[in-house]
Structure formats: C-alpha cells, structure tokens
C-alpha cells in the first residue's frame, strides 16, 4: 500500500506505537494515509481499536518476516 507518511515504531512496545500514531496523525491532511511500521504484534489489534475510538479509518495490516506494516487513513481532525 502506498502511504503519504511513514511512522517508524520498530522496536517499540505497547503503548508507544499508539501514542506516536496519535501524535503523528495530527501532521497529516484529511485523506492522507499513514503507515505505521512496528515489530510489536500488538499493533494488529491495537491500531484497529485506536481507529474505532478516534474515528479514523483502518485500512489493514501486512506482516513480513515478523515486521508489521499498518495503514490508517485520516478522515477527520
């Protein structure tokens, strides 16, 4: 998936990827896609949960060799 902005959370454990995502998303414009890269498997469940709570759109997560690439579209401020 093509993202507008990438947030590197490799090596970070819960809750840091989520806290960083909530900060980073503020820099995006509506409609842009944020890619969150992480090694903590929790991202698979946590990012959709965060999206549900904040109203952002969760686009999916890909796993490659123990690395996770998760995508969020900013749909609101």
């Amino acid at each position: 998936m093509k993202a507008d902005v990438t947030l590197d959370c490799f090596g970070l454990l819960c809750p840091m990827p989520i806290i960083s995502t909530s900060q980073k998303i503020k820099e995006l414009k509506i409609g842009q896609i944020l890619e969150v890269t992480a090694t903590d498997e929790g991202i698979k469940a946590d990012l959709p949960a965060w999206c549900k709570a904040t109203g952002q759109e969760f686009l999916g997560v890909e796993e490659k060799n123990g690395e996770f690439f998760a995508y969020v579209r900013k749909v609101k401020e």
Partner: protein
Amino acid sequence: MDKEKFNIVVFSGDLDKVLAAFILATTSASMGMEVNMFFTFWGLNVLRKKKLTSGRNILQKMMNFMNMGGADRLPLSKFNMLGLGPMMMKIMMKQSKIPSIEEFVRMSKDLGVKMIACTTTFSFMGFQKDDFIDGIDDFAGAATFLQLVREGKISYFI
C-alpha cells in the same frame, strides 16, 4: 461533544502498578479521552521531589524518610529485594524501550492528562506543595474524584 472521561486512582506507589496506570492513562489520552489521575497515599510518591524528608512533626518526618519519594525511586510490588528488583526492572525497561515513570509523567502532561493530588494524604503526611514536582493540576479530595467517576466512562483504582 464532551470527551469521554477515564479516571484512575493511583493509590499504589509501586513501580509496576504505577507503570500500568501510566500505560492506560497515556493510551486513553491518545484515544481521545479526557484522563484524570488522582494520586493518593503511596501513589503521591510518583509526584514527589527527591528530598531527604518532609513533614511537620517528627513522626511525619520519620515516615517520609522511610517512604522515599521520587518517580525514579519507586519499589516493586514483588521481588523488591532492597532495591535490586527495581534496578533490574529499570534496566529491562530500557532494553525494551519502555519509557521510565519520569518519562511517562512528562508524556502524560504533554498529552493533556490531568493530575490531581489528594489533599488528605497531604495533610496527613505533612507534605507541602513545594515537596512536589510542577504540573499538578489540582489539589482535591474524594468528592472531586467521585464526581469525575459519576461523569466518567471508565474508572479504575490501581
């Protein structure tokens, strides 16, 4: 629309429990909730400056000397072993890139988490405001917290 409220009583001053409280506080703030942390009893140690002691009378001074304050001096609830446990835990946290409690306090402030200090513990232990770090939003009692709980979506006691 008002934000949903998440309230936590931080009663414990143990490193592991306080860590859990801050993980939930920072995450819920990131999820767009209004977070209130009510520090009481041992939990107030998180917000205390590192001082030799404090208090107005001899018993309070003795108690506050034994009950050391400071976010980086919290004991573990298990395997404290005269400080060896927390020392090991802090190294392990660093290795796993988990922020320290001090960093969590700063991060919580940045995320807009409201910190309330319990006035009863204050008087009881003989603390002064200047025994505490800057950034405490409010000094209040049980009624204030209970009103937050009444309005709250989630409330925890740790």
